[in-house]
């Protein structure tokens, strides 16, 4: 992602397309769109070098609303299409916008393979814990027992924890943010862009029509501080306005009350760059009500990207022998009839 020679001074408006935005009034997607457009305007990348690839879902309509190149593909396949694009065009900044159904249900396999391969893709997964576009069936992130059109008596599947899944797949960058916190989300999106490799960002997004208030247990004002752990690399894992922290006791993570049962020294320090994914995994697993939900960059480990290595192999092959079609066609044993 080397900065091209000349980057125009962009504003958010430069990234707004001429298409009418067609989400329900009040949908969390609006806020995310606005934050991403703003973030784009600050990046040292020319507009035409951004590509947004998406699958199918409310969230996947995103590319139409951003005035860069965009490809609204088929359900679940955006990571595969983006991988092919990035493999052959390492010069582009390739974003993937997807939903919890698109990414984790039909597209789960492409997602985990993209993550292990570490193509330099920026994956933004809007998690509203529901299928919005198809009008409200439960999704792989919906809580057990969820009553929806397809589960009138309650769903029977235990949900995925998307970040845990991503870490299990070997993701080099995982982060979490939410629609309503423009500042935090903007920072995370920018950080995800800076990471070289596959960045996986889970964005909690409210679907006010089919799953309103899915995240209130840790986003509502009264509980917010107590139920969100904002992680920062190199910083102590404290929350609740500094009154609590994550400590390890009997080899398990627990919440320590600072000044009561724990001191700041006991509190663990966040290391997003730990090559062992276990630390990030433990943070990803924290959940309400017992724990706060970890928000921010949980893991950011650099390793060569797939397309880098691919280009390198090609360069080496070319250095070894010239691409001579005539020779190739005549390879092996030939004979001439006169």
């Amino acid at each position: 992602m080397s900065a091209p020679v000349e980057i125009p001074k962009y504003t958010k408006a430069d990234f707004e397309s001429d298409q009418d935005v067609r989400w329900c009034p009040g949908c969390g997607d609006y806020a995310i769109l606005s934050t991403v457009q703003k973030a784009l305007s600050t990046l040292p990348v020319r507009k035409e070098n951004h590509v947004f690839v998406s699958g199918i879902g409310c969230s996947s309509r995103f590319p139409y609303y951003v005035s860069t190149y965009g490809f609204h593909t088929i359900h679940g396949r955006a990571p595969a299409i983006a991988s092919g694009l990035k493999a052959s065009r390492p010069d582009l900044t390739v974003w993937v916008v997807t939903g919890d159904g698109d990414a984790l249900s039909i597209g789960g396999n492409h997602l985990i393979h993209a993550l292990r391969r570490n193509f330099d893709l920026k994956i933004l997964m809007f998690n509203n814990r529901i299928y919005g576009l198809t009008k409200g069936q439960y999704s792989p992130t919906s809580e057990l027992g969820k009553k929806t059109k397809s589960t009138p008596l309650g769903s029977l599947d235990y949900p995925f924890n998307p970040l845990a899944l991503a870490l299990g797949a070997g993701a080099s960058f995982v982060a979490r943010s939410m629609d309503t916190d423009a500042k935090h989300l903007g920072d995370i999106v920018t950080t995800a862009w800076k990471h070289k490799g596959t960045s996986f960002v889970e964005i909690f997004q409210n679907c006010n029509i089919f799953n309103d208030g899915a995240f209130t247990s840790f986003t509502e004002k009264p509980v917010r501080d107590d139920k969100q752990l904002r992680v920062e690399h190199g910083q102590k894992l404290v929350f609740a306005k500094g009154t609590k922290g994550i400590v390890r006791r009997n080899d398990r993570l627990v919440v320590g009350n600072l000044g009561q049962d724990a001191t700041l020294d006991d509190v663990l320090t966040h290391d997003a760059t730990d090559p062992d994914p276990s630390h990030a995994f433990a943070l990803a697993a924290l959940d309400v009500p017992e724990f706060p939900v970890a928000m921010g960059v949980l893991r950011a480990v650099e390793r060569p990207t797939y397309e880098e290595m691919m280009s390198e192999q090609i360069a080496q092959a070319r250095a070894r022998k010239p691409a001579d079609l005539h020779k190739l066609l005549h390879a092996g044993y030939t004979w001439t009839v006169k």
Partner: protein
Amino acid sequence: MSITAITPSEKRRQEIPHVTIRFVGDSGDGIQLSGDQFTSATAVAGNELATLPDFPAEIRAPAGSLAGVSGFQIQFASHEVYTPGDQPDVLVCMNPAGLKTNLKLLRPGGILIVNTDAFSESNLRKVGYATNPLEDDSLADWTVHKVPLETLTLECIKDLDVPTRTGRMAKNFFALGIMYWMYNRPMDETLTYIDKRIGGKNATLGEANRRLLLAGHAYGETCEMFPVNFTVPQAKIAPGTYRNIRGNEALALGLVAAGVKSGLDVFLGAYPITPASDVLHQLSGYKEFGIRTFQAEDEIAGICSAIGASYGGALGVTLSSGPGIALKQEAMGLAHMVELPLVICNIQRGGPSTGLPTKTEQADLMQAIYGRNGEAPIPVIAAQSPSDAFMAAYEACRIATKYMTPVMLLSDGYIANGAEPWSIPRTEDLPAFSHHFQTSAEGFQPYGRDEQTLSRPWVRPGTPGLEHRIGGIEKAHLSGNISYDPQNHDFMCRMRAEKVQRVQQDIAPTVVNGDADGGDLLILGWGSTYGSITAAVQWARGSGLSVSHAHLRWLNPLPANLGEVLRRYKRVMVPEINLGQLVHLVRSKYLVDARPLNQVRGQPFSVGELVKAIKQMLEVA
């Protein structure tokens, strides 16, 4: 031709116009290697030839089992050859399992050369022989040469430091030597192979194999058992530089050539599957041509990554066989809708479902044409022989790019693994193949169209000022914005169909081999039946029958003159290795009473059965 011929004693020579030889044995017996070497030697000898490897269906069946039998058949001649031959004249047999499964193929009176050392009691029992067929009278119908191949082999190299097991496995070179003597083949090419490929890695083994080949040859020359050797005179072969090539190799080279000539980067996204994988293997070795091969997590990711690459301005290619092609249909629909170039190579195999993965079939034609949801026609092209896969692949790429459309290329297991001499084209003689990326914003419409081809512009992301969005929802004419307008949908469906139809502009009119102005019977074929049909028609015409042959390269669209051609004949017969597919297309389209001839036995038509069908149809005895 510059060929090193080895001259055996003249008096025992007999000249014959053609011969079919079949090698059979255990997978571990080096049958395919022997076949390949014999083929090269035969090409060098200046004969026309065609080959057919016959792999065991099982990945690695137990040694000596019926399931583990591997075969290789070659027909060569002093005249043109179109098939590997119906019935072998000679069967070279390494073990009881090979005998059991292949003896019925050998023509009565044919020559059987058999490795007696393998006929131990336990081996015989393994395949269900109660008594040793070499010792009872069950082989009375054939001319049998019993050779203790393993004993001879071990004897011949006993002074070398070769483990007995390895030595025994080298017996195929002794057998090959006998055959080289018997059919008067030049040995230089094989000796070079032995020295370089085997000796290069293990000098002792190289020496052993060299010795065995020569010893086998000498054995033929001196041994009392073989009263005569045969000469197949050189065929009249068109001038040119030749190499022997398998279909999968030729297909891969066609893709490379398309990339080089068009200046486009080739990207292959694929998931391994038999018998398509070899094309992936081939292409992954051509990195210096900038070819990017991506082994995807499944077939869907394979085609999707190729679509992504095409979107980025590369020539996206994917490939598969059988069930893997079924999985790609949804994404083909997307490629059709967004109108990006894409080549889908389908190396057909026996179906349905997992079917017969190692056998050949032509049963994916209708799926190629109709396999997607909605109205999503795509051009379909078929290769007709191993070497022809080169041009078929090249053409598929050219049309995909010119018309901005996915194209399906049909090959099959027979073409993929079969080999034949290929007159290597000069790169400068390949059809012109250019591409155009739109860069000017002037009058740019993402779904504007070229007047002649109806193709839309190809814009590489990264092009300033041309930013736009595409997708799988119906799009408005010209602007490409999402459109739910009923009239627009009807218009766009017809427009896409018309674009595919326009590929006719690039399709040569149907050519008839035989009575071009009409006659009693036209045989209409496509794909790998080419050889068998050509041979059968040649035979029939030789017997004075009014039989002609037309072979389709493009299955969609069909050539503009096809209906008119078909109507010139009293009868039309369509032989296919399926239960009737092309025959439906032409009956529906031209209302011609074309009749099907079908079999799905995992192998090509024999010339004999075609001849029989021709006679039946013309009601001659």
